[in-house]
């Protein structure tokens, strides 16, 4: 992990750091190595690189801007305070998204803000089990949800994503918004590869159903 900074980089003679311009060109592993050496500029570079993807993921998970700001901040504090626990055989971004997702999911569990799938439990294996585990949204939560989404997100696809169960939401956002492979998502979310494929398939199916009315 402690890859030496690339030779030939322009360096600040006072703090022996690559200039900000060069820092932006370094791979994540090198920036992490510099951050572990106590370089604040490297910490800030990691934030700069990932603040938008992490905030977007968390925002779409919790659907509240202020809360998403707080959870994004918590995510970066956790990550940067425990950089020594990062294992370089994984992509830094996968580790970061894993923590961001855990922070968001933990919050949803604590606040019981989970929305539920129209298809019932993702673990259901028979049609009866699917029907039995399907729970409808209450009028109150649906109207509050719609009001919030209309104000903050707006589009039909965003509203449809908001109705997915959180596990589906994480998978589909990592797959199609962040462009992660199925294997990376499985590593990031600590899920078996088959489960990731199932979640993404079901999420697409639900989104397709949810968007049908917009095409009619």
């Amino acid at each position, binding site marked *: 992990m402690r890859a030496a900074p690339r030779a030939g980089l322009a360096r600040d*003679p*006072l*703090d*022996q750091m690559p200039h900000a311009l060069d820092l932006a060109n370094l791979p994540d592993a090198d920036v992490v190595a510099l951050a*572990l*050496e*106590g*370089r*604040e500029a490297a*910490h*800030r570079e990691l*934030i*700069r690189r990932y*603040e*938008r*993807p992490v*905030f*977007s993921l968390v*925002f779409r998970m919790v659907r509240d801007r202020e809360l*998403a*700001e707080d959870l*994004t*901040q918590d995510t*970066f*504090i956790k990550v*940067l*305070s425990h950089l020594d626990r990062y294992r370089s055989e994984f992509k830094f971004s996968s580790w970061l998204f894993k923590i961001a997702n855990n922070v968001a999911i933990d919050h949803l569990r604590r606040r019981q803000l989970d929305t539920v799938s129209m298809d019932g439990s993702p673990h259901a294996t028979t049609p009866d089990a699917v029907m039995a585990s399907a729970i409808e949204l209450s009028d109150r939560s649906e109207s509050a949800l719609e009001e919030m989404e209309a104000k903050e997100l707006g589009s039909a*696809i*965003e509203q449809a*994503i908001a109705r997915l169960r959180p596990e589906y939401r994480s998978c*589909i956002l990592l797959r*199609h*918004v962040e*462009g992660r492979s199925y294997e990376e998502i499985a590593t990031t979310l600590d899920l078996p590869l088959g489960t990731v*494929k199932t979640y*993404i*398939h079901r999420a*697409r*199916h639900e*989104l*397709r159903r949810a*968007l049908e009315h917009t*095409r009619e």
Partner: protein
Amino acid sequence: MNHRHLLPNEIDLLVDGEAGFGVAPLRAHVAECDECRARLDDARIVVDALEALPHFAPDSRLADRVMAQVPVFVPAHVAARDSVTRWLPQSGPARAAAAVIGTSIAGLLTVAMIWLASRGDAAIFATSLFADRVQSLVMGTARDLAFSLLGDSAVAAIQASGMLGVTLLVLGFLGTAVGTILGLRRLATASSRRG
């Protein structure tokens, strides 16, 4: 034409743009089957909409808020390395000159050591002479310093207390020095965090 319509996971393979031996027949089927082509188009509409979603920007002060709560420590070995590096010249020619001078000094010292080693008696004489001179210089300076700092009576009291007194004095001095260093380090860390 293959009359079996595509399964949902086969539609997913095509949506994900998978390439492989098994995918070609699926593409061939879609090219001929209106129903499967319509299902694939529906699936692609969703994926295209997802992939067109933008990233949202958080508050511009996020980095400052995060860094205010993240302790940034410079490990001792990095601080030591930086201290050494700071003394090195920045320009290439200056570094080359420093390297030449350093190598010359090291070479001279090595030759001197070899010469001394080959003349054992002379080396022992020179070493003992040098040690005596250094000892008398250090002792004289220390005595003068002690008299000027502490006064005659305090020095007399220390001499009277023997080895125990001197040991306690040295330990007290070391304790004060270490405490001062740690205190300064803590102050420096606190101010760099605030900064």
